[in-house]
């Protein structure tokens, strides 16, 4: 069954990827920006886990600004998405 599960996973992944490719470019740009912001935040969290939270202000400002900009970008994506026209 493992083989089929992995094959199913691969198939699922490919299906998702092809569906995603259909999205318009501007939305893809926004998605890319969101992923970038989240990754930056993650790296900062990992760093804090490593060395401790001494300048806690710095940690907070770094992480929260990344998360904030990601959230705002998501809002923009929702508004720009043509499929949400009825809202």
């Amino acid at each position, binding site marked *: 069954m493992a083989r089929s599960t992995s094959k199913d996973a691969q198939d699922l992944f490919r299906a998702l990827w092809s569906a995603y490719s259909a999205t318009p*470019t501007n939305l*893809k*740009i926004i998605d*890319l*920006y969101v*992923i*970038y*912001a989240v*990754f*930056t935040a993650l*790296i*900062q969290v*990992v*760093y804090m886990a*490593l*060395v*401790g939270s*001494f300048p806690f202000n710095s940690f907070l400002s770094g992480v929260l600004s990344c998360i904030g900009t990601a959230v705002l970008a998501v809002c923009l994506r929702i508004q720009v998405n043509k499929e949400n026209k009825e809202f």
Partner: protein
Amino acid sequence: MLLLPRMASNLARSLLLLLFAFSICDAVAIPGPISDRHRSAALELFAPHHGSFASLEETYEALRVFEILAVGDKPDVRTTTCPKVLENLGSPTPLKDLFYALKVNGILKCKVNKDVFKDIASKLKATVKDAKTLVDLYYSIGSLVLIKDQASDVDVLLADANGTFQTIKALSQSDGKWRYTDKPESSTYAAAPYCQVNSVKNDILKLFDSIEKYDDGTFYFDEKLVGGHEHQGSISTTSSVVRGVSAFAAVTSGKINLPGDKILGLAKFFLGIGIPGDAKDFFNQIESLALLESNRISIPLVLSLPATVYSLSNKDQIKVRVNTVLGSAAPPLTVKLVRAFSTGAKDSAIIDNKELKYDQNSGHHVLDVLPNKVDVGTYVFVFEMVLHDSDGEKVYATGGQIHVPVYFTGIVKVSNAEIAVLENDLGSVETQKTLDLAGNDIVSLSANHLQKLRLSFRLTTPLGHAFKPHQAFLKLTHEKKYEHIFVVGNAGKKFEIVLDFLGLVEKFYYLSGRYDIELTVGDAVMENSFLRPLGHVELDLPEAPTSKAPRLPPLAVDPYTRYGPKAEITHLFRAPEKRPPTQLSLIFLGLTLLPLIAFLVGLLRLGVNFRNFPSSAVPATYAILFHLGIAAILVLYVLFWLKLDLFTTLKTAALLGVFLLFVGHRILSHLATTSAKLKSA
């Protein structure tokens, strides 16, 4: 008053005697009249520099002081001063110099030509007419008066005396009262028939109402009540008032009703100054006293005692002197001792109503016989002067009853002195030695902590009464220089102290060894006060318990170390937080920048283009500006992180934000319209 000096006992004893003698002598309450000390001080203060004085004013002050005090061998300044005087009288000079030149001439009597006086007189009369200030009027009228005295045939009468007087009154209203008292003096000289005497009299009485008073009956004028412009000080103010009032009294015929005690108070004020150190104060004091001595209102008489400390053992006699303020003889009078009482028992008087005999040779009034009831101590003697001439009451001011503190010293008998070591519980005597406190022998005792030391003696006054001295101390000094002082208490005549060593072990810091014993008995009226080492006692005290190790106090500290700099305190900063190693931080910095690169790469792969970038001029600039604005804000972030503080950053951010808002709105609206146009088309 008396101290416990740490010196050899002989030196200490003599010092004690000197100290108490000086302390009592300084307490004379009545200021004496002018004496030879004033004369020698005058010679010192008014010493001319190279044969002449600095200014005419100082010359006049010096000459007048020498004249009043009748100082012998005063410096002769005629040769240098007369030419100065002549020079000032000849050429045109300021009024003040002219005034003082004339005053100096009045004393020195230099040879001045009559024409010079005539010339000056006419010039002065013109000045009087146009004088604008009170000072000018004072000097000019004063000079006219002086010319009248020195050259009697020169005409000095003022043309319009009444008008002058009105000007004086008007100017004095605005200038302050103190000069007002000087002006009537000069104005009345020159304008005798015209002045309004009564109004000036009333003003003088009003001025005297504002006189200030010290508690012992001294009267003086204070500057703040009379409103001078420069800082005058009470000596100058009071002397100006005295000058004005006495000059006025000399000129007017009527009587000024000033109470005699105020005049006496003013005399006491000037005498109470003692010998002033400043030449101007000295001059003011001497001149005012001279005016008070011969004024027409009432002449003060001063009662003084040459000494107020009398020794019973020497059988001193009480002497009293009565003089005028300058030290000359008083009119015939008798001094009565109204009452004398001890300061401790104010109600019972030991002497009542005795008259003092007058000794022609010395000029003193002497109390020949002192009653037997006078013992050592402090007394108050109340004197009163009775003039032989009954009319004298109006002319002289005697001051009623005068209270004088008098001290009687004597030998206090010290007897029955003995020192003993007692057993603690039973009180039985182990060793007992009698002491002769007048002699020099010392005792040697030994005791342990279970015993007591007892010292006792008796003190008796010459009349056999009990005597409690100011100081009765017993001092024990250890070899290591630790001192312990105890007060010897008394019951009547017997003085006794018992030192219980059991209770004192801790006070003595558990130190055993040899203690030196010293007894001090002293009082201001005791002529034989003593500080006597009695000997030593070998004390055997138990060891200090280790739990309570006695902390010996530090001995007399060198004052320089006590107030010197203390140890430096270094601040302990909070230990800094542990920071991660630099390389790790830098690695993660790189890692953080990685997603940015990935983002840009992804954008390129998605085929990001600049198609919608407007090409025509106006929107293009807006677009560029918009992008530049955003870049600027990012740069501001970086700068804020690196260098700037919050305030400047916020200011710049606000400015940039406004700019960006404006530009962004333009470009985005442009884009929106173009896309709308595209859609509709």
